[in-house]
């Protein structure tokens, strides 16, 4: 992590013992009390800081020494570097009981800022935050002495209100609001002058500074803002920047009418009523109370910023700031409108125009989010039709800008913040959910936890099936997006549609191939569709398999199992019988139609197989209702190798739930049909004369097949002889040389033991029936009984064949 030198310093610092630290501290103390604070003092303080900071547990320094640090810090002769180091050490030791610092007497604003940083780190056990807040406001209220600037203490105030807004009284809030309004609106529009460098040869007369300019070089004709440009800056221009930087949190804290604080005056009640009558009348802003006046100035400031953000900056890096300012301005306007709805009409028309200007420009895309949020919050009051804004946001932006990671993140946050909109079936929000998955497909690692939060809002009976397919195809979506991007980057000459007769050899070719075009379009669709034919994507999935090793595709594939589990968890809460049936059928179908990524398929099978069991438990009748599909699936021997997890769980479910207890429509013929199908499979799998090319089958599958056949026989007792004969042949199977060479010894032993247990159970048909046809488990105890089937089997076996010395408990 660190360089070798740094690692060794860190280690040394951590290993310093208390005694050595004490000695070092006293050495530092003597240096600090000396006449001059030179490089040696600096060096020692630096090492002391590292020692204190390096350990997770707090280091103890002598109380007298801590006091000395504070004295040195506040001493007027102390060089700045030493001051900063002392402050750093004191902060590192927070919370510190030996603190005697108080900001009450400090006049120097830089020192006040340093001391405040220490006090604010103490955890506010002694009301330090309020004390700092009070002092800052006091300093701001009065005229500052020459050479001092409020610039250094304004951020302290911002910190104070975020830690503890009650620190300020209503009166103090008004004082600061008034100043902020002035700073925002009336900062100088002339450039500052360079600080005179002094010295013998410097001329006292400096060139007259010119007016400030806009970022594009034009002379500014309106008031100063953060987007105003000057070579040097005056103090009030700095305050303008600072005031805007803290404006949002200030308004959120104090902008609403009537902040009730324990320290507010009794007059506050009267003030409120005066304020409320004033705000509805158009009046000169000078007569407005401070909060309302600040609101007015802030609104104007934001409007001006919006206008300024369209200018083409001379310095490229200012372009980024313009976008950030735009976002901030729109957000603040939204806040202002929430606090005073009389601004809504002005803001709405203004922002509609803004939207029209920027909606075609990809570099402004992030600003579309606060604009949309504004209209979501206020369009009713504004009586503005903002559907076009939402539509553009949800259909065009994700499709074009899914690869912009920051936009993707903020977009998903926006969706989460407005998740209730996605539950309304006919809304444009809900319709566009396929588009939203593009963000996740491309930017999986940061967005997976956001989607885990957001997915439940999207899921209901109407969307479940489509989302199921979407999740399974998510890695293919990533691959398709990659192809789309690469295709867009090609020169136009290579973009012509390719010959339909020639099959494409690469994904890029396929993108332009007429036959594959519609497949891509379906995968990359922006709107939800009820069309449900996942098998038509099979050729595309196979082709996209060539991108299976791309890191982005792999990252996306890793998110799918998590989302699938969440999907089923949510769906289980509302799904009815028909939906569960639909899902099971699709589950079996899609097990053949997955993106060709090996680890992905295994993980998906694992999740699907366990969720299949959950669905069966919810709706056991599905075994009977879907008997055709399940028979087809469990009768295919190839499924054992390719999809062992799913196969095993399907067969297990048949054994558990194919019973008249779960569905009265379960006939003897049905049981027989399943029995014969599974028997055929088991027969094929356990052939006594396998060919050299016959692979070994998963032992778990063999066990489950045997168990299920036994269970079915227990319910339909004329099948018992068939099963018994089969089971007794297992000994021969397990011992045959062709088999022992392919299977593990422990596995074969397990199979034999299981076969024997089942065989023994069948010798007592009535017991078998009870064991294998338990009532629907409604209590936890009963469910545990069901789950302990292997134990039950072993108990029964022991009862039938008592080993010497075995005493039944």
């Amino acid at each position, binding site marked *: 992590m660190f360089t070798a*030198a*740094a690692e060794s*310093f860190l280690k040394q610092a951590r290993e310093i013992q208390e005694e050595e630290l004490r000695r070092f501290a006293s050495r530092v103390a003597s240096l600090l009390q000396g006449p001059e604070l030179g490089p040696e003092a600096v060096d020692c303080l*630096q090492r002391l800081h*590292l020692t204190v900071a*390096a350990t997770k547990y707090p280091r103890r320094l002598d109380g007298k020494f801590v006091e000395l640090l504070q004295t040195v810090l506040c001493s007027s002769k102390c060089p700045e570097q030493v001051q900063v180091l002392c402050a750093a050490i004191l902060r590192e030791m927070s919370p510190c009981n030996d603190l005697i610092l108080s900001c009450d007497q400090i006049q120097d604003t830089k020192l006040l800022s340093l001391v405040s*940083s220490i006090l604010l780190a103490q955890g506010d056990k002694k009301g330090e935050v309020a004390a700092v807040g009070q002092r800052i406001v006091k300093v701001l209220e009065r005229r500052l002495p020459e050479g001092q600037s409020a610039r250094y203490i304004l951020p302290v105030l911002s910190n104070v209100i975020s830690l503890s807004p009650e620190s300020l009284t209503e009166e103090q809030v008004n004082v600061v609001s008034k100043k902020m309004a002035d700073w925002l609106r009336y900062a100088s529009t002339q450039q500052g002058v360079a600080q005179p460098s002094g010295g013998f040869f410097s001329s006292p007369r400096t060139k007259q500074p010119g007016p400030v300019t806009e970022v594009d070089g034009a002379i500014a004709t309106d008031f100063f803002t953060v987007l105003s440009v000057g070579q040097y800056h005056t103090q009030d221009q700095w305050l303008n920047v600072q005031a805007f930087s803290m404006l949002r949190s200030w308004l959120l804290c104090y902008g609403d009418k009537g902040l009730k604080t324990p320290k507010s005056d009794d007059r506050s009640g009267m003030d409120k009523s005066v304020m409320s009558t004033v705000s509805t009348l158009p009046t000169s802003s000078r007569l407005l109370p401070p909060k309302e006046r600040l609101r007015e100035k802030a609104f104007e400031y934001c409007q001006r910023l919006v206008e300024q953000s369209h200018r083409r900056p001379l*310095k490229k890096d200012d372009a980024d700031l313009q976008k950030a300012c735009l976002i901030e301005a729109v957000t603040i306007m939204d806040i202002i409108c929430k606090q005073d709805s009389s601004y809504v009409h002005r803001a709405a028309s203004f922002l509609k125009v803004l939207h029209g200007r920027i909606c075609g420009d990809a570099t402004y895309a992030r600003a579309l989010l606060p604009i949309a949020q504004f209209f979501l919050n206020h369009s009713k009051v504004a009586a503005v039709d903002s559907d076009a804004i939402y539509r553009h946001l949800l259909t065009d932006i994700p499709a074009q800008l899914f690869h912009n990671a920051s936009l993707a*993140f903020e977009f998903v946050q926006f969706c989460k913040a407005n998740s209730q909109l996605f539950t309304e079936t006919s809304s444009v929000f809900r319709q566009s959910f396929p588009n939203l998955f593009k963000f996740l497909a491309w930017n999986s690692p940061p967005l997976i*936890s956001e989607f885990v939060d957001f997915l439940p809002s999207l899921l209901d009976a109407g969307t479940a099936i489509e989302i199921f397919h979407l999740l399974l195809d998510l890695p293919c979506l990533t691959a398709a997006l990659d192809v789309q991007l690469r295709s867009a980057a090609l020169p136009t000459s290579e973009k012509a549609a390719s010959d339909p007769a020639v099959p494409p050899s690469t994904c890029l070719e396929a993108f332009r191939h007429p036959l594959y075009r519609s497949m891509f379009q379906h995968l990359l669709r922006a709107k939800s569709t009820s069309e449900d034919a996942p098998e038509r994507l099979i050729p595309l999935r196979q082709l996209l398999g060539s991108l299976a090793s791309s890191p982005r595709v792999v990252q996306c594939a890793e998110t799918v199992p998590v989302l699938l589990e969440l999907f089923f968890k949510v769906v289980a809460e509302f799904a009815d019988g028909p939906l569960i049936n639909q899902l099971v059928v699709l589950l079996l179908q899609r097990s053949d139609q997955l993106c060709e990524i090996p680890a992905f398929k295994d993980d998906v099978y694992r999740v699907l197989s366990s969720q299949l069991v959950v669905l069966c438990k919810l709706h056991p009748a599905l075994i009977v209702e879907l008997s055709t599909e399940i028979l087809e699936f469990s009768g295919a021997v190839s499924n054992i190798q390719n999809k062992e997890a799913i196969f095993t769980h399907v067969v297990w479910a048949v054994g558990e739930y194919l019973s008249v207890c779960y569905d009265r429509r379960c006939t003897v013929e049905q049981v027989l049909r399943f029995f014969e199908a599974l028997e055929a499979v088991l027969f094929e799998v356990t052939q006594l004369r396998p060919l050299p090319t016959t692979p070994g089958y998963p032992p778990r599958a063999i066990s489950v097949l045997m168990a299920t056949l036994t269970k079915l026989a227990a319910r339909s007792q004329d099948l018992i002889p068939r099963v018994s004969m089969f089971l007794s042949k297992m000994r021969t199977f397990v011992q045959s040389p062709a088999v022992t060479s392919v299977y593990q010894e422990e596995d074969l032993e397990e199979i034999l033991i299981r076969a024997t247990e089942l065989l023994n159970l069948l010798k007592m048909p009535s017991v078998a029936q009870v064991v294998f046809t338990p009532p629907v488990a409604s209590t936890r105890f009963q469910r545990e009984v069901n789950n302990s089937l292997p134990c039950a089997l072993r108990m029964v076996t022991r009862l039938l064949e008592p080993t010497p010395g075995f005493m039944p408990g």
Partner: protein
Amino acid sequence: SRQVASQCRLLQSSSARPLSPQLPQLPDDPIPLQDAPGGLFQLPPGDPFPERVTVAWLSVVAIALALVCDPQENLSLAEITLRRLAPRLLHSLHLLGPGADVLLRPEVADGLLDRLLPHGEMLFLNQHFLQAVDREL
């Protein structure tokens, strides 16, 4: 919040997830910060901060920097602030060099943070204001 920001710088380089398709292998070239990988992610409450936070991160060769924000803060500005802090920190503390300035010169880091992120507050500084800050440092 300044404390948190500097803590993060040291502790969270592991959780900044620079999972980009390719990692540049050019330690000697001038640092192309425009293309430096970066991103945004959220941390749920309790892990490790008591409230939900959003983290903006930036990775420059072997160093990652992270800025921890409240979820409602201006994330565009957070990214800009990071991109401004990174080269200045790298340069002043010689972060890519063999020394241990980052550990032994806390006042340099504090000074930079005090100007560009005073008391944890992000500032809307245009290029000229930024130059003024650089002159003061």
